[in-house]
Every structure is written in C-alpha cells, then in structure tokens.
C-alpha cells in the first residue's frame, strides 16, 4: 500500500505541471488548448534525446523552450491568422507528431540505458533522502513551477493575461494587445506541459511517440477534481488545486490498477465521463432548475383550474 501511495505521489507530481498549464490556458485564458498532447511528447523526446547525449539538465530547459515554440505556433495561428482556437491546437498537435519523430532521428522511441539522468544525478547528491529522492526532486521542480506561475500571474503582464480571458475589450482599453497576452499565456502554459513531458521522459528512461495521447483530457480531469476539492477562488488555490487534483487522480488510478474495481480498459471511458460531466454540470443544473420551475408552474395552473 505504501508503495502504491509513493508511486501515485510521484506520478501525480510528475504530471502536475499539465493541469497547471491548463489552469492557465483553459481556466484563465478560456482557451481549450489541444496542443497539449503533442507538446507533452515534444518535451519528453527533447529531454530524453539530450539526456542520451549526456546533458540531462540542459535537456529539461530545452524541452521547456521547445514547449514555448509549440505554444507560439498555436498562438500565432489563432491570434494572427484567424484559425479557430481549438483547430489551431489540433493542427499544431498534428504537425508535432512529425517534429517529434525528427527529434528522435526517425525512430518512434528513444531509451536511456545506463545514462545519467536528472534523477540519477540527484540520487547521488541527495543520498539522505534515500528511496524518496526521486519524489523530492519531482516535488521541488513541480512546486517551483507552481510558485513561478503564481508569481507571474501577479505581475502586470500576468494581470493583463488574466483579464484577457475575462474581458478582452477591457484589456485593449488598458493599452495592452490581447493578441500579445494570449500568445504569452499559451507559450507559458505549453512550457509547463513540456516540463512535465521532460521530467516523465527522464523518470521512465524512455520517450515514446504515442505517450501523449489523451493527456489533455486526463489533465482536465485532474484540474476539475482539484477544483472540486479545493475551490478556485484565488490564483494560489487554483494552482494548488491543479497539483492536488493530479495526485488524487493518480491515487484513483493506482487503486483501480490494484483492485480492478473497474476493468483497466474502462479507465479512459471513466475519465472522459468525469470530464464531460464536470464541464456540463452548470448547464445540467440550470436545465434541472428550469424543468422544476416549469413543473411547479403547470401544477399551479392546473390547481387553479380545479
């Protein structure tokens, strides 16, 4: 059991930058950024390829830089060339498949065999942490990313990004170009996604071309789970909720894996249902409310007739 919790914590923290990224793109900028899947893989392949070449730390930073570029392409498509925002992400995501193959020199996966990674380096440096050194490193990176994001959102630039999703007219009236803020926002969010990919790649010692499929839906589920538990009133709460949601999701995943309450193949369907339901919830609530009102009104009317 302890082992399950430890693994869930590690995986939860490893993947947590993606719900953080969606907190920025989906919640704050109000954009469903479909670049996420391909961007995650991009982060992984860049980081693993550079780790294989002997530069694991540089690999992580280059992964994030690659994420920024991916976000930039999606942002350009939608802010400059009028491509609808969902489609812009889908197009970039599609093109990234080829880019990812290129980075890996044409093969569909790269493995790290007895190569130095961020984690082997840290294990040596932080021997006091013993078996928990991986988790410690992941936690440091993920929490640093979250802290950086919260700080960024409190700066003047961050404020204008937040206002862009809220009321773009007002941003324009404040002498800031909403195209610019949207672009910066998508660059930052995709760098977080790629950071997660970069960490996961070195943690698992492998990068695979198909490892990103559906990750945007899982990350949305994490974000929604976290927000349900913690609320999303402030930027701080929203960011913490994204991390917490990611951990909870991995705990659920681990429990299902262990106990098989739900067959393993059913997990994706379950995730899809959770996400669809959570996003549809406000509308469903409204419709139920209206139906009740109609029912009461008709009862009232027939009562008067009698």
């Amino acid at each position: 059991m302890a082992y399950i919790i430890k693994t869930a914590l590690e995986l939860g923290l490893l993947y947590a930058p993606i719900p953080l990224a969606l907190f920025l793109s989906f919640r704050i900028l109000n954009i469903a950024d479909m670049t996420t899947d391909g961007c995650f893989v991009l982060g992984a392949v860049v980081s693993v390829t550079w780790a294989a070449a002997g530069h694991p730390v540089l690999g992580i930073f280059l992964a994030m830089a690659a994420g920024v570029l991916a976000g930039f392409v999606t942002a350009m498509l939608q802010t400059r060339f009028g491509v609808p925002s969902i489609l812009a992400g889908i197009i970039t995501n599609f093109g990234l498949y080829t880019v990812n193959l290129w980075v890996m020199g044409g093969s569909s996966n790269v493995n790290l065999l007895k190569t130095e990674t961020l984690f082997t380096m840290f294990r040596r440096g932080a021997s006091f942490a013993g078996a928990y050194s991986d988790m410690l490193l992941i936690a440091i990176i993920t929490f640093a990313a979250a802290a950086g994001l919260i700080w960024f959102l409190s700066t003047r630039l961050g404020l204008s990004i937040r206002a862009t999703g809220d009321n773009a007219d007002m941003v324009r009236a404040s002498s800031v170009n909403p195209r610019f803020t949207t672009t910066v926002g998508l660059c930052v969010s995709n760098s977080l996604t790629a950071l997660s990919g970069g960490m996961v790649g070195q943690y698992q010692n492998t990068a695979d071309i198909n490892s990103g499929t559906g990750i945007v839906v899982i990350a949305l589920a994490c974000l929604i789970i976290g927000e349900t538990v913690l609320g999303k009133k402030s930027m701080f709460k929203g960011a913490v909720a994204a991390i917490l949601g990611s951990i909870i999701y991995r705990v659920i995943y681990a429990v299902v894996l262990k106990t098989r309450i739900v067959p393993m193949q059913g997990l994706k369907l379950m995730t899809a249902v959770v996400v669809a339901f959570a996003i549809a919830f406000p509308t469903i609530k409204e419709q139920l409310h209206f139906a009740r009102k109609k029912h009461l009104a008709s009862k009232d009317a027939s009562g008067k007739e009698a």
Partner: protein
Amino acid sequence: MLELRNISKTFAPGTVNEKKAISGLSLNVEDGDFITIIGSNGAGKSTLFNAIAGSFFVDDGFIFLGGQDITYLEEHKRSRVIGRMFQDPLKGTAPSMTIEENLALAYLRSSEGTSPFSRISARDKKNFREQLSKLGMGLEDRMKDPVGLLSGGQRQALTLLMATIVTPKVLLLDEHTAALDPGTAEKVIELTKSIVEAGHITCLMITHNMKQALSTGNRTLLMNDGHIVLDVSGEERNALTPKDLIEKFKNKVGEELDNDRILLST
C-alpha cells in the same frame, strides 16, 4: 485637439447588408470641449466613437489627435490617450478580478517603460484607495472584492475612474448612464462632470436625454444618417430647449426624430 477629416465607414460593402454608417464626416474638437451627441437610431453615433477609438479603421479620411495622425494606429495603442465607457456596465471591467487588480490594469496605460514583471506597489494601492474614496461609494474598503460582486452603478463609477485614472486626451462616453436607475445615473453624471472638470479632459458624450444633452458640456451635435446635421454651442445653445432641438431636427432632416428613447425621455 481631435480632428476628424472627411471620414467614411461602410459595413459589409458589396452585399445586400451594405450599410453606410458614416459618410464624409468632419469634426473639429477643441481642447477642453465637452460635446454631447444625440441622434436617431442608427445615426452613426457609436460608429463615430468606434472610429475615434480605433475599433476599426475608417475607409476614407484622416483622424488627428493632438496634431498626430492616428488614422491607422491600432486600438490598444490609442487607448493610452483615449478613455472610453459603454452603456453596458459589464463591458468596462473584468468581473473575476478584484477592484484593485482592475485599477492596476487601467493604470497600465501610464506604464510605458516599466517592467512587465513589476507588481502593484504599496504606493499604487494608496493612490487607488484615494481615488476610490472620491467616488463616495465605499469602494475603497472593498479593494480585494471581485468586481463581479458590485452593482451596475458601482461598476460604472469604477469604470469611469479606470478610464480617467491616467488622464486621457479624449474621453468617449457612449450612453454610460443609460442602463442605470435614475438616481444612480444622476450620481454617475455628477461624478463625470467633476472628474472631467478637474482633469480638464476633452470629452464626447452620447446621450438620449435631451435635457442632459443641453445641460451638460459646452457644445451639442445632432447626428442623422452618418452626418452631423446640427452643431450648436455658445449663446445659441444656451437659449435652446429640448423642444427647440426636436423642431430644429425636423427642419434640417425633413423627418421626425426617430429615437423612441429620446422621445420618451423628453
């Protein structure tokens, strides 16, 4: 101060929905003018404001502000020197952000040259607090509240403050009190007058209230069908009553003023 030289704007040209919103309009606004604008439905009043603010570029003509040609300057760049308010109180503020954060955003207009990574300073906060207290709505004690919690009147007063916190060269008010109840509208108009006066701001205001059009500012324009059909100021304007204005409109245009809201409010 602000000069429009022969500007035109046609929407959906070449289609069945083609609409000449402004045609060959020229206007010279003097420094410190407070102009009120009235006109029929679809006369081009809001289009005129959109053209000045840069929501679109005009098809023809030139726009000068303070001697500088701004005809092709983008909207967000013009907004450094042009403040604007709409009828809809929801349009001017970001609902999920706090009063303080909204003001900080508006204050960005003065920020040229400062780092985009700087944050709201204690001095900014003190400044915001002082300015808010001038509104007399108690908002200075609610700076951490999201703007979405405020009433329409409070939001509109806040938007007014945001539009003028960095003194603009021109302030455009598009029926900014029309959605408020009479009492609140009166208060926002008084605030507008005192802020405009204190800052010596050049101001254009669209209104459907004839009395307000004549009692506010120093010059009144009547618009119809994309043109300015009447431009009164000084002695001539002082002598006018709302009835005279409707009569004058009829004489000029040859038809009744077609704006039910104007007619209902006179």
